[in-house]
């Protein structure tokens, strides 16, 4: 019996004592511990690259995405007609009938906050790192700040008061309350000031696929317009215009080509030869539209000799019926010369024009507006009243930036003229200036109450 007992004891001991080691598996080959990820600049850049892939592929800035503001805000305002057989979340937005359960709106919200988390994680990671050089740390933090602020900017414009967080702590973030719009904009301005100091003018990549200081300044100028700080907007825009890095693109055919000197920041598709998301998204031929087409109102706003109508818009005719689709990006296969542009110099011109006009310096502002017209083969405008100038500014910008990241919606909103949409959109109501906060978010975090008025 003794021997048996020994055996029992032995087996028992073996299994009990060795258990800890027996079940240790270490890390999987495709994962890296969080602190290690920020130990060197390559992996820190990779964490930042994640943010760019997200922004490129499924964010409010993705030109050819179902949650991009290019299509959603385009259809919400007066740029796009939505073309689906059955009612869906996009049709609801197009018809201004969105409810708090709209899943496209919920995706805009959740994708943006996920990307904000990614940006915060990168910022936290480089701040904690003791091994990165100061240059690398500043650059990475600056880029992440810029992307985060841009996302907040859109969230604020779409939803009004929104939560603002720089924390990674889920216990804090799950109960966070809303920040009032004016406070948020002040914060964003502060964040962008910091990004401007952190970033350099020189591009990290000659193809301008990463934002530099000037890109940060452009966003800063945008925020200044919202904060009605006309002077700072003017100064910031002027700073960009005076930079030797940039040059106005005179050839209408070259505007959406990646090598232009007018580009401040563009997003490169994943692989060489891949189409931009915009090129594939709006494409249809030989049959009725798939998703969106340009509104007759927008197409009609172009003069027939406007080169933009000829070059940036394609007509599709089937059985005698014609539709128009955006055609700024053209290559659907073997794309060699197009990236998706986020910021281009033309916007700085329009910011300049707007800031000056707001200060009642219409004559000074005119050349900045005429630049677009002249390139489009139109006659430049001459002396206008402030009111007339503003109308022209809005119309011109609509023609220049149609389907680009919701410029039209943002402009109408900033000018307080969204209610003009009711002429075209029967269901437009004043409270629809902002979208509803997604219902699930309210349920999960009651501190987000109250729901936006009207919803």
């Amino acid at each position: 019996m003794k021997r048996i007992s020994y055996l029992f004891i032995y087996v028992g001991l073996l299994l009990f004592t060795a258990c800890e080691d027996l079940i240790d598996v270490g890390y999987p080959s495709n994962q890296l511990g969080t602190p290690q990820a920020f130990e060197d600049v390559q992996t820190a850049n990779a964490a930042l690259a994640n943010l760019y892939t997200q922004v490129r592929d499924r964010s409010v800035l993705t030109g050819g995405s179902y949650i991009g503001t290019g299509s959603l805000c385009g259809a919400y305002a007066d740029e796009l007609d939505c073309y689906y057989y059955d009612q869906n979340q996009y049709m609801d937005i197009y018809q201004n009938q969105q409810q708090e359960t709209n899943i496209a709106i919920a995706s805009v919200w959740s994708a943006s906050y996920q990307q904000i988390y990614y940006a915060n994680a990168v910022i936290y990671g480089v701040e904690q790192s003791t091994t990165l050089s100061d240059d690398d740390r500043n650059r990475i933090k600056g880029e992440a700040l810029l992307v985060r602020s841009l996302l907040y900017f859109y969230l604020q414009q779409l939803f009004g008061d929104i939560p603002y967080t720089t924390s990674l702590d889920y216990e804090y973030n799950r109960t966070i309350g809303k920040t009032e719009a004016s406070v948020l904009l002040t914060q964003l301005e502060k964040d962008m000031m910091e990004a401007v100091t952190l970033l350099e003018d020189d591009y990290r990549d000659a193809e301008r696929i990463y934002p530099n200081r000037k890109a940060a300044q452009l966003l800063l100028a945008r925020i200044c317009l919202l904060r009605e700080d006309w002077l700072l907007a003017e100064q910031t825009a002027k700073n960009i215009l005076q930079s030797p890095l940039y040059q106005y693109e005179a050839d209408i055919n070259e505007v959406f080509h990646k090598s232009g000197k007018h580009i401040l920041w563009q997003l490169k598709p994943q692989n060489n030869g891949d189409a931009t998301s915009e090129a594939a998204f709006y494409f249809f031929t030989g049959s009725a539209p798939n998703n969106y087409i340009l509104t007759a109102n927008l197409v009609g706003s172009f003069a027939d000799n406007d080169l933009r109508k000829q070059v940036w818009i394609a007509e599709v005719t089937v059985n005698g019926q014609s539709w128009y689709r955006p055609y700024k990006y053209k290559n659907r296969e073997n794309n060699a010369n197009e990236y998706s542009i986020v910021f281009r110099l033309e916007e700085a011109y329009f910011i300049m024009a707007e800031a000056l006009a707001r200060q009642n310096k219409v004559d000074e502002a005119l050349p900045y507006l005429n630049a677009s017209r002249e390139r489009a083969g139109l006659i430049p405008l001459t002396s206008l009243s402030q009111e007339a100038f503003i109308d022209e500014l809005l119309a011109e910008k609509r023609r220049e930036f149609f389907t680009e990241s919701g410029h039209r919606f943002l402009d109408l909103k900033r000018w307080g003229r969204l209610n003009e949409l009711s002429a075209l959109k029967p269901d437009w109501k004043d409270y629809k200036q902002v979208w509803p906060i997604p219902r699930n978010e309210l349920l999960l975090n009651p501190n987000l109450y109250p729901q936006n008025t009207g919803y």
Partner: protein
Amino acid sequence: MMEKNKSYCPQFYRLLSVLRDTRARYRLLFLLLAGTFILINSAYTQTVTVTGRVTELSGNPLPGVSIVIKGTSSTGTTTGEEGQYTLPGVPADAVLSFSFVGFKTQEIPLNGRTRLNVQLQEDITALSEVVVNAGYYTVKDAVRTGSIARVTAKEIQNQPVSNALSAVQGRMAGVNITQSGGTGGGGYDIQIRGTNSLRRAGNYPMYIIDGVPVSSETASNSLSATILPYTEINPLNAINPNDIESIEILKDADATAIYGSRGANGVILVTTKKGRAAKKTALSVNTSYGLSRVVNKLKMMDTPQYLEMRRQAYASDGITKYPANAYDINGTWDENRYTDWQNELIGKTAINSNIQLSLSGGSENTNFLVSAGHNEQTTVFAKDFNYKTNNLSMNLNHRSDDNRFTLKASGLFSEQTNNLIRSDVTKQSLLLSPNAPVLYKEDGSLNWENNTFANPVAPYGNTYDNKNRVLNLNINLGYELFRSFYLKLNGGIDQQIFEETILSPNTTRNPAFGSTPASSSTTKANQHRFTYLLEPQVNYKHALNGHETDILIGGTFQHRQSSALGLFGMGFESNALITNMAAAANAWVDYDTETGYKYAALFGRINYQYKNRYILNLTGRRDGSSRFGTNNRFANFGAVGAAWLFAEEEFFNDIRWLSFGKLRTSYGLTGSDAIGDYQYLDTYTVSSKSYGGIKALYPSRLYNPYFSWEKTTKLEAALELGFINDRIRLNTAWYRNRSGNQLVGIPLPATTGFSRIQANLPATVENRGLEFELNTNPVRTGSFNWNSDFNITFPRNKLVSFPGLEGSTYANQYVVGYPTSIVKVYNYEGIDPETGLYIFTDYNNDGNISSPDDNRVIKETGPRYYGGWSNQLSYKQWEFSFLFQFVNQVQKNYNSMMSRPGSLNNQPVEVLDVWSKDNPGGQYMPYSSGTDAQKNQSHALFMNSTAAVGDASFIRLKNIQLSYRLPVNRHVRDIRFYAQGQNVLTFTNYFGLDPEFILTGFLPPLKTWSFGIQFNF
């Protein structure tokens, strides 16, 4: 040493030597007597050589029957593989005794005959002698304390199914199996006493094949999502059902707690067939051929009805000019065409062919079985898609002469190749307009009807293929070290190589888009899993004065290494090169992972029996799993079970009709670690995406190292009764399982960056139920035998608690006090006679029907009761059996997936009953073209209303079979002819294609007829 002992104890050794002598003397005496006896016998009685054949009543040969001459000590003989025997030297007036386990022993006087054919009758009372596999140990059915359901080869063999689970549907109480679809190589939804976890993957049972656990986590990633529901591929697809000897399903705590953390959802034990001792090696060739079709088709509108609906839709919306994309009625498509799209797309007859060879034999000590099988089945889709399996299995058993050493080895290899369409076209077959254009032009090319027709067969070129190779090896060694003290070692290997490919050539897309092979793409996913298992065990048995003790202590160590590689390639010079990733202009690695899972445990069982009447069974397990953070890696599980065989008590002796009576109960704790690997780590993961040539790294998850095991407590009480010599058996079981500590992602607002965090949710799910099994043997005459078995289960699932449910995203999915399988829907009241729109109850009176305030009606989907009734009848060489399966349930019906009546989609004929002023009793609101937002909204609500949930109960003639055995000659023992039907008849009121589904929109299970021949040599 011995000398020394001798000197110490001389008397003892003297005694021993006397004894030795005595023993020798007795031996001598015995030999003399025996010799004399033989001499006398041979001198005075004539001996003969007796030959003959022993069969069952059905005529099936019975090998291994032991035959002895009554009243002698002669060793006799045993029957061979064909049941034949030869026994020389038998006195002409001797009485021969034929005995075989499970059969009644027969004693037959020779009366001078030299040829004696005997039919043995199955011993029905021996049912309790059946030995049941409980995993780590076996137990006699009579004295088991746990709840174990069992089916054997007899029930499942030769059925026209590629997975044995199809053959056991409806046969076991407490086990609800739903086949996920009619496409070969898919999954099954198996609920053993309900669903415990709130996660689907947390409800998979544990599968063990010949002692080696196989992973129930599906190998397929999202590549198969549009053809295999939930991308599930059942692990038992890898076994030829004809190789299976028995399937045991462990249900209660007593049976499952020894599997600790992995036993919560029940354990499915598969035992493969073994060889047996036979003088002649037996060869069996079995081949069958089957034809399958869809069980049911929906009756859809024909062209005139459909076109009338479409025209009314526009008319009711006040539209006179049909829009450009209303091709069906604006003159683009031929309005006189009619196609039955169900016929065209899912109407083919699938062919199912099967061949299996097996060879078995052996001696008393060693036996073997080798089997090879090939199965091929096509689909009902209108192209040559198919699913092929090749199986090879081996079994070897050895026992040493002194019976102390045993070895069991088994090996299973299977190769499954599945070639499928990437997306199921079942839904399209219902939606396509009946006047949609022809599929192919006259030259055989795809017809796009001038870009107006999304040709449904174009995606046939868009294929999903998988190849699944599984190798499962098991070696089980046993050695009796001391008397009744055994050492055992169970070891095994489970290897799986799984390859998936999706081909997406540009030709599957409308050519008007001008795409070239530059946009053709290929996706590949390869997975490799290797698991080894080591389980040393010691077992001690002790019996004294009616006290029996059986102690088992063992350990488990399991290590699984997995690697996965995903590739994507796009842009080919030509589609001829599309299968070769190297030919892609752009190819990249989506993911490349190597992961590990380790699991270690110590387990034990103490079984105590007194007088074979009072039984106590204690089981326990301490588990360690690499899936938890360092502080939560270990947990203890265990159970206590007890049984009382009350019919053995003296006071029951007078009750003759009660032949068996047992009360048993068990209580215990089991668990689950099925949450995937590494969820507790704070890491960044390599993304499939890159930016500017830099591969992205993304934060893997929100960091929580504190979550721990999911736990299920199980309580059961059961009464087992046998009447009239066990010709009627009635088993009744009541159970209550409670699962807490739910390992489900806790939903978080998006501001946290993630939608959930892995944590233990303090929600409790309860499953309780009643199970009845009635086994009867109403007729049992010499040549006619009839068994009839009935089982029924009344399950009840309830969410007992869920803190914080109201404020969570689960609020729309669950309600405390109701099953976890509810749907919350709007209350449909009828049609508004003013507007023609559907009316729903506006619970919050805000004038607006919306979620979550108005979809308040709770509908409990899932089974209310289910079961089966099976019958086996045999008459001489004929056997006939059938099984009815029944499920009483409520499910979402066709209204829940219906497109808006009036849209460019066909509808079931029921939709003809449309409301109008003239038809105020109409079921559906006026057809609508889709331009009226109010009507759209009304239809959307209708799809989520009480009208979209309905009775989905069904009774199905699940299996029917007839077989005839033809005895032939010495060389060919016999030939068996059989015909089988699967899912032959279905009785249901369900509005939809078929009431058996786990996800809508996929092809339902098929109806099959098959014919087969089995040659036994």
